[in-house]
């Protein structure tokens, strides 16, 4: 052989050695452990390009050119990869695979009994984000009003607060970054609900839990509204707003390195102009006026963030209404309120699967309430009728509350985790009623621990326990909590929750002398079915709640813990963003059967804040071509009971009772987005109760119960027109200038 030929031959041989001699056809089908077909699974021979992918029927088929003992790899995201030896000899092979789902936060079952969670962590159709809150027609960008369109919440309008599943407003607590908010609502006058203090844009996530919630939260018998504040803003911006009722301005500055930010806002609300245009039921001797200022800073740390938020509010309202016993007289109610709220939190990843959440808050609240009986000349008078004169009172109350809370979490194998922590509150409440001092001091401490246990991707349990002590009650309580969730299909699941909840009695009970009161208690049982896809949510929940040790307030002022009650019901929720392109709507319905004996109630009766049927329809549509969004909300509640309780010396009796007519309200709002020069402008117009339904929340009785008067909203409708302007939201123009 010629040497060159020889070399060529060798080279040819080398090339040829890697060439196929024969091919083997490999085919089969891929399913998951529930025997459901999986498409798009990659099947390959290790170290080779040969392989295929499963089609929409789960089948795959490919030829491979390697020979001998090889490894076949079957993988798909979300499933555990399968590797198996395979003998390739030229004879066709049929091989089927069954893949097991990986335990994964995105696909795993979540414990949903009792809660409406928002946020895109799970990518499920979120229930309420900040944009949703501001676009609920007629809710006037108030978080509480928006939450009232979800099942479980009552349409109570004569006082602020969320009345959940037969519970009072006191039984619902709001938590910001883990710590409880002592005064979440602005100061209010009797029979008129006030707004929440916090802007929905402050929060990135909202969980509205109507029962069975985590051992991390306590001192709320019925419901927890868990709010998580936003991290760093996207960009620096300045903003201003002008409307029929308020003006405001703010600044938010994001550091150049995007590691920290700070911001300040100021708002002034005055209803003088609005009330001049729209007549109100009561007359005001001081038109509602609110100042609010807030500031924040946020600093990114190595594995987390430190956030501080503070808000200061001052308000002054004075209202005058005819006295119900004597039409020659007026009841005067004036309230001046100052509130300062601070929240500092630190969230950090400590490494090795450990997470830390520290929270602290401090708040001061001062109310100066002036109650008077005045004649028609607006002069304070004494009538020598004791039950009328007793209205002439001055109440000054000072409350402050300091809290610290620490939660540590350790991720275990998979996505299971254990969590434990504690909190400590120190609060004082001082009231001066007619020159008599009442001082309440409370030291409250709690310890809690819970575990998220994922047995499989389809079955999870959350087991927790919480122990609390408060010096005000001087008792220890231990509350177990348990929830289970089982995934019944790709998008559906069933959950169950059980929990015991304790709450200390309201401060006001202690103003009538030393009371020896214990905790009030509720036990929740919930069963929930939920089906969620990215754009649709269906939820059905049944619950039973048992109340024990509720506070009774007999006319003797010897209060006791002998009250009790129950609540049971069914709730439905359906949200759909899919069926009609661009249309987003949700429907909720709650059926509630509840009775309790507490407060003045002489027997087990349906409370005045519980309607049997409550329903809401919320519809939103944004038209891109018009840059305009239209939002409608309809709320319905069947009539609520009302009572007149008359003292019989040591007990009350029901002297009169009835049921109010049904409650209906239809609200709408329009928002138009536009750009004026460099500023981004949102124009908002909103009307509550468009059809002028006359709504009755309940009745006030005169002294002997012979005459009753409707409690109505202060005006049938509320109109709002405003412009929200911001600069620098969109830095695109700057980006263009810098980059081109």
């Amino acid at each position, binding site marked *: 052989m010629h040497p060159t030929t020889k070399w060529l031959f*060798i080279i040819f041989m080398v090339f040829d050695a890697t060439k196929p001699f024969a091919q083997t056809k490999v085919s089969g089908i891929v399913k998951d452990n529930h025997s459901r077909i999986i498409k798009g699974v990659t099947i390959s021979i290790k170290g080779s390009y040969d392989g*295929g992918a499963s089609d929409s029927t789960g089948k795959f088929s490919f030829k491979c050119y390697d020979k001998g003992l090889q490894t076949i790899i079957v993988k798909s995201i979300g499933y555990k990869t399968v590797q198996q030896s395979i003998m390739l000899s030229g004879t066709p092979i049929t091989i089927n695979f069954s893949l097991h789902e990986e335990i994964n936060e995105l696909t795993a079952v979540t414990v949903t009994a009792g809660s409406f969670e928002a946020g*895109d962590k799970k990518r499920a159709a979120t229930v309420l984000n900040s944009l949703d809150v501001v676009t609920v027609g007629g809710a006037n960008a108030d978080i509480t009003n928006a939450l009232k369109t979800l099942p479980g919440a009552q349409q109570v309008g004569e006082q602020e607060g969320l009345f959940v599943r037969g519970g009072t407003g006191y039984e619902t607590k709001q938590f910001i970054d883990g710590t409880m908010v002592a005064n979440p609502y602005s100061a209010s006058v009797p029979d008129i609900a006030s707004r929440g203090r916090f802007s929905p844009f402050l929060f990135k996530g909202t969980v509205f839990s109507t029962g069975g919630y985590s051992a991390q939260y306590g001192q709320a018998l019925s419901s927890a509204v868990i709010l998580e504040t936003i991290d760093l803003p996207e960009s620096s911006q300045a903003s201003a707003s002008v409307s029929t009722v308020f003006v405001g301005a703010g600044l938010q500055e994001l550091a150049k390195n995007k590691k920290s930010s700070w911001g300040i806002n100021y708002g002034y609300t005055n209803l003088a102009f609005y009330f001049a245009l729209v007549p109100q039921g009561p007359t005001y001797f001081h038109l509602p006026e609110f100042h609010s200022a807030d500031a924040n800073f946020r600093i990114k740390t190595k594995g987390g963030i430190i956030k501080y938020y503070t808000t200061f509010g001052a308000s002054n309202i004075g209202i005058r209404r005819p006295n119900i016993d004597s039409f020659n007289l007026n009841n005067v109610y004036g309230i001046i309120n100052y509130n300062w709220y601070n929240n500092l939190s630190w969230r950090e990843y400590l490494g090795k699967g450990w997470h830390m959440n520290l929270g602290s808050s401090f708040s001061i609240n001062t109310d100066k309430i002036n109650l008077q009986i005045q004649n028609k000349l607006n002069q304070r008078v004494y009538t020598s009728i004791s039950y009328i004169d007793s209205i002439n009172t001055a109440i000054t109350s000072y409350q402050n509350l300091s809290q610290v809370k620490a939660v540590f979490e350790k991720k275990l194998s998979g996505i299971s985790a254990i969590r434990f922590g504690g909190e400590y509150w120190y609060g004082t409440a001082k009231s001066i009623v007619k020159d008599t001092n009442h001082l309440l001091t409370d030291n409250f401490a709690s310890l809690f621990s819970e575990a998220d246990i994922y047995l499989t991707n389809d079955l999870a349990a959350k087991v927790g326990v919480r122990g609390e002590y408060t010096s005000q009650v001087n008792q220890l309580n231990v509350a177990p909590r348990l929830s289970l969730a089982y995934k019944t299909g790709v998008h559906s699941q069933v959950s169950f929750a059980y929990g015991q909840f304790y709450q200390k009695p309201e401060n006001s009970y202690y103003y009538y002398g030393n009371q020896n009161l214990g905790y009030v208690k509720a036990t929740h049982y919930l069963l929930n079915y939920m089906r969620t896809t990215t754009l649709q949510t269906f939820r059905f929940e049944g619950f039973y709640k048992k109340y024990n040790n509720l506070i009774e307030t007999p006319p003797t002022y010897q209060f006791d813990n002998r009250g009790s009650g129950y609540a049971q019901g069914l709730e439905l929720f359906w949200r759909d963003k899919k069926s009609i392109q661009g249309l987003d709507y949700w429907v909720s319905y709650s059926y509630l059967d509840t009775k309790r004996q507490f407060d003045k109630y002489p027997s087990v009766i349906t409370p005045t804040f519980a309607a049997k049927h409550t329903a809401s329809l919320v519809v939103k549509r944004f038209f891109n071509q018009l840059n305009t969004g239209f939002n409608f909300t309809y709320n319905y509640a069947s009539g609520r009971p009302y009572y007149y309780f008359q003292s019989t010396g040591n007990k009350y009796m029901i002297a009169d009772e009835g049921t109010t007519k049904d409650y209906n309200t239809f609200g709408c709002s329009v928002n138009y987005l536009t750009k004026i020069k460099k500023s981004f402008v949102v124009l908002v117009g909103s009307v509550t109760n468009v059809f002028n339904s006359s709504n009755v929340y309940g009745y006030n009785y005169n002294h002997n119960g012979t005459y009753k008067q409707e409690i109505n909203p202060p005006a049938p409708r509320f109109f709002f027109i405003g412009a929200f302007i911001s600069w620098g939201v969109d830095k695109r*123009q700057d980006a263009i200038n810098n980059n081109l």
Partner: protein
Amino acid sequence: MKKVLVIASLLVATVVNAQSKFEDAMTKGLGQFKDAKTAADLTDVSSFFERVGDAEKTQWLPYYYAALSLYRSAWVDKSVDKDKVADKCKDFITKAQVIENNADLYCLVQQVAILQMMVDPMSRWQTYGAQAKGALTDAKKADSTNPRIYYLQGMTTFNTPAAYGGGKDFAKPMFQKSVDLFKTYVPKPYYPNWGKEDAEKMLEACK
């Protein structure tokens, strides 16, 4: 001497063979990618590139195309679960970025973020819009002369309503910059080479 030559030629032959095997695969895969019409064609292409990537371990291009073709399949077949597709794409991108991090991979991160945003733009633009924006900033840091960055930036701007600061007028200079950069853009063999016609078409649409 002969022995040395034999060994040397053997080594060269192996390397050349392996190299050409990869090149053959890339040529074959890119051919299929070009001809792909249906979503199933595109997922097949993706699966092919995934296998090449897994076998090669040191080449980022197969993962890039595995992600790109899968990403495109989600626009062809609108019924697919875009989040699932995005997760898989991100998995490929991460694998590629371990090997090499470059502007084209960041561009792909942006495209995938936009895909996820489109599932529910009203409630997702804050999260995914920010991700998309961040990815293009990273892409510019990696290579500010990559014309696809400005094409993608232009597309987002073009599709953003004027009220939010988007529209033709703002998008036009971006497409212009992309088209200008494409004039001198010479990709290495098998490197991403798409976007020129798209940018020209969009620039025309802005006029």
